[in-house]
């Protein structure tokens, strides 16, 4: 039977049920109009003359209920009605009494029941309509017949014609009866009195086998036969009609699910027979079972899945969730369903566009989200990182109403990532802040990475600059190719490491001694991956070490000098005093001298002449003066080695240097064509804080250094291109004042440079002097002023003295 063109008025106030039933009916080809209230239903019915069936919910909330609405409709026109109710109470059913209805089904009775009820109602109505029509016709015919009979009796003619008309009518009814696509039988006392073709086809029996046979023939056992009979009879008694499902037997023994309906032929006389219909609903049952199976499969997948899944509606409210989800949140699903606050507002706000997109029909990947895990037992919330995917969930109309969200718990991954990030950051901090230069190169020597300290050591601004400068093999930063070869050889041999000092080149071309500590870093499989290394400018450190050694040496020398001084002073005293007295008694006009000469029979003048003629006077003077010179050296040594007791003033070192320059400018030696004023002096003074110092001593320090430089330079003829110059620079440092005095003289070799501050160290540079040379400035600065003094020099490169003086005097 074709459902199309059949129009159903659905009276239903609940949207969910309405939507569901609307969809179901539409799917099965009905056109449906919906009324949300009883009043509306009447109104709609009046406007639509083509409505074929009314599907009425009894409980309609406000206004008239379903039964009342149907009553009003039925007043206008007879139409099949199927009532739906959520209740089966007597009062509800009572309401429908007196209303000609073609079915009564319970909500949630299943789609099949609904569909079948609707289908059967329409069919029944049509059958009834036909029967009624037939009945009317029959009655009409009867009347006619009676009239005719009267006529017959009177006329007794036309009988054959009337009989043939009756037969024709009977044949029409039969034709209609047989054309129904539902099994129909007229039963009296549960025996078939009439069956249609479809029933025969459905059951496999022939008409003659069924006629007068008990309906038991269609049941597998007597129990079911009796059950059906009793229940249908009860319904008939109670409701005036009956509907139920049963399992029926075909002729060959095959079973089928059947929907049975029963209605009286004559409501006033049940014994006069009933009209029963049989519908094979095996197909429907199968579909229903398949649906159920499919749903169970889905449920099983969802529940067994270790991935948390949930279904949310368009507003973000929870519709359903699986066990994994419950475990994830430590949350009870039942409590959560229907609530919208499963997701916090902020997160919902974030998710809403994504859910909306999924609702439009395309799956969406969720971003990584951080959740505070809602806690039922009031424990401290623990954070949870999740990501996932949202899929649209289509209903039977293909419309997306819900969204399935599959969640992936990435908390562990996030934690690992965070740990990794922290570790990386820690490494970066060390890398960036370590004062030692760090670098990484490929096995071939290409620069991969350097830290800021490394850039600073070489004077680079950026890594790119460093990479370009160092070349493909970093060979360019090595001053000596030989050293580079040594390093490379060590790296590529089994040793795979190098520790040592090499000369390196900065960006500006200057050279420095670099301490290298390099190694090849292998992979887990032992293959060389890259080379990493540390580099330090060890010039400063080596100088400090030298200074320490120097200082030690000087202390030893000073100690020795102090111990020796006394022992030396006595013999010196003897030499000097006796020489002096010898001179007195030989040359001075002392009364004693004249008396002594006379007593030995000579003239004192003659003795004086003799001493002069034989140069005894000069010998003795030489002895005395030499002793005097030696005494001065010892005295100076002692003076500086025991520190200074001179008065300290806070002075600007720039001024002290200027005074020393004044003193130096008076220094010249005609014989060697030496003149300090021929040297160009370049001053590069900074603003300096006053430092505590003994002025004359510091003057002496600079004077000694200036003279030292000047003498060294004067020994070399100046180049045509380059005049002799001394450059004096002063700086303010942290807690110190630093003074650099550099010359462009011949410089010193390493061994000279290392011993330059030792007393009595003679080099041609220190020239004449008292033999103490630069040890005097050393003692003054280091012992007397707690400062430092050092020298950088190389042959042909001049010398640079660096002096630091503390701004605060040590107590």
């Amino acid at each position: 039977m074709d459902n199309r063109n059949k129009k159903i008025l659905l009276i239903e106030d609940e949207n969910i049920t309405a939507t569901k039933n609307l969809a179901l009916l539409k799917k099965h080809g009905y056109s449906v109009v919906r009324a949300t209230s009883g009043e509306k239903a009447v109104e709609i019915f009046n406007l639509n003359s083509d409505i074929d069936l009314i599907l009425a919910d009894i409980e309609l909330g406000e206004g008239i209920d379903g039964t009342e609405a149907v009553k009003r409709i039925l007043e206008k026109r007879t139409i099949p009605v199927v009532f739906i109710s959520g209740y089966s109470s007597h009062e509800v059913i009572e309401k429908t009494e007196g209303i000609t209805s073609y079915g009564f089904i319970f909500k949630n009775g299943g789609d099949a029941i609904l569909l079948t009820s609707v289908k059967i109602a329409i069919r029944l109505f049509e059958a009834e309509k036909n029967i009624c029509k037939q009945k009317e016709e029959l009655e009409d015919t009867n009347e006619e017949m009676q009239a005719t009979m009267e006529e017959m009796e009177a006329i007794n003619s036309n009988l054959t014609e009337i009989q043939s008309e009756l037969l024709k009518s009977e044949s029409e009814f039969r034709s209609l009866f047989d054309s129904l696509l539902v099994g129909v039988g007229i039963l009296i006392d549960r025996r078939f009195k009439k069956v249609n073709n479809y029933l025969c086809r459905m059951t496999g029996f022939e008409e003659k086998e069924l006629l007068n046979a008990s309906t038991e023939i269609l049941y597998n056992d007597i129990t079911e036969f009796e059950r059906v009979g009793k229940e249908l009879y009860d319904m008939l008694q109670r409701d005036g009609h009956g509907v139920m499902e049963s399992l029926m037997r075909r002729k060959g023994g095959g079973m089928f699910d059947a929907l049975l309906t029963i209605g009286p032929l004559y409501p006033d006389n049940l014994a006069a027979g009933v009209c029963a219909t049989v519908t094979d609903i095996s197909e429907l049952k199968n579909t229903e079972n398949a649906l159920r199976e499919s749903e169970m499969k889905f449920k099983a997948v969802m529940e067994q899945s270790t991935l948390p899944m949930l279904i949310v509606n368009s507003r973000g409210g929870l519709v359903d969730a699986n066990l994994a989800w419950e475990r994830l949140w430590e949350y009870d699903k039942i409590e959560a369903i229907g609530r919208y606050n499963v997701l916090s507002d902020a997160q919902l706000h974030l998710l809403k566009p994504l859910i909306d997109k999924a609702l439009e029909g395309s799956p969406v990947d969720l971003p990584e989200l951080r959740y505070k895990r809602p806690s039922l037992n009031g424990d401290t919330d623990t954070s949870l990182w999740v990501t996932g995917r949202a899929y649209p969930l289509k209903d039977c109309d293909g419309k997306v109403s819900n969204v399935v969200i599959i969640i992936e718990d990435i908390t562990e991954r996030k934690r690992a990532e965070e740990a990794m990030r922290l570790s990386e950051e820690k490494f970066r901090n060390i890398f960036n802040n370590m004062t030692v230069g760090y670098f990484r190169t490929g096995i071939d020597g290409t620069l991969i990475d350097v830290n800021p300290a490394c850039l600073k050591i070489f004077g680079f601004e950026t890594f790119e600059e460093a990479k370009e400068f160092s070349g493909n093999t970093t060979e360019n930063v090595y001053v000596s190719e030989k050293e580079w070869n040594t390093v490379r050889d060590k790296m590529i041999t089994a040793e795979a490491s190098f520790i040592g000092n090499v000369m390196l080149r900065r960006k500006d071309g200057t050279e420095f001694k670099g301490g290298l500590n390099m190694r090849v870093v292998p992979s887990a499989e032992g293959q060389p991956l890259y080379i990493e290394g540390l580099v330090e400018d060890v010039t400063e450190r080596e100088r400090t070490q030298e200074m320490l050694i120097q200082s030690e040496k000087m202390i030893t020398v000073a100690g020795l000098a102090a111990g020796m001084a006394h022992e030396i002073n006595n013999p010196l005293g003897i030499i000097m005093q006796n020489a002096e007295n010898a001179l007195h008694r030989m040359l001075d006009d002392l009364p004693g001298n004249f008396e002594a000469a006379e007593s030995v029979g000579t003239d004192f003048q003659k003795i004086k002449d003799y001493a002069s003629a034989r140069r005894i006077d000069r010998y003795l003077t030489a002895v005395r003066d030499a002793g005097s010179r030696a005494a001065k050296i010892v005295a100076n040594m002692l003076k500086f080695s025991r520190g200074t007791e001179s008065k300290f003033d806070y002075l600007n070192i720039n001024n002290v240097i200027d005074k020393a320059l004044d003193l130096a400018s008076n220094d010249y030696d005609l014989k060697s064509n030496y003149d300090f004023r021929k040297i160009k002096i370049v001053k590069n003074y900074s603003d300096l804080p006053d430092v505590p110092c003994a002025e004359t001593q510091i003057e002496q320090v600079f004077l000694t250094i200036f003279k030292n430089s000047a003498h060294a330079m004067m020994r070399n003829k100046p180049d045509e291109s380059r005049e002799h110059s001394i450059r004096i620079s002063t700086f303010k440092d942290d807690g110190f004042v630093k003074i650099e005095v550099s010359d462009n003289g011949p410089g010193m070799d390493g061994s000279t440079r290392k011993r330059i501050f030792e007393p009595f160290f003679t080099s041609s540079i220190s020239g004449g002097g008292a033999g103490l040379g630069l040890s005097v400035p050393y003692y003054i600065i280091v012992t007397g002023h707690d400062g430092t003094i050092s020298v950088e020099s190389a042959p042909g490169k001049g010398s640079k003295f660096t002096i630091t003086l503390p701004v605060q005097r040590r107590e």
Partner: protein
Amino acid sequence: MPKKLLIIDDEEYIRLPIQDYFEDCGWDVDSFSSAEEALEYLGAGTADCVIVDMRLSGMSGLSFIERANEIRPGLRYIIYTGSVEFSITENLRMAGVSEEYIINKPVDNLNVLLCAAEGNPVKGK
């Protein structure tokens, strides 16, 4: 009457030129190689000035001045020493010794000692 000088030094050839120089200059000089001998002399006699070395075998120069100051207060002392470590003590100050009378060995000119002995020590020696 010539002025009286005592010299105490364990080095004979330190004593001798000083004695000769002062005698040439009109002083009466006695010299001793130890502090004990000098103290013995001061037990009976006296002097205007004493030139004394600090490091002596036996009694030190310092102890000598303390003892001598008890026996013969008011003598002028010149400390003539080869050691620059020496600095004046409270007892020396009590005996009237001041910085100017500490003279480091050796002197360029013996006149330095003579001036000090006459009470006119050379400043900034």
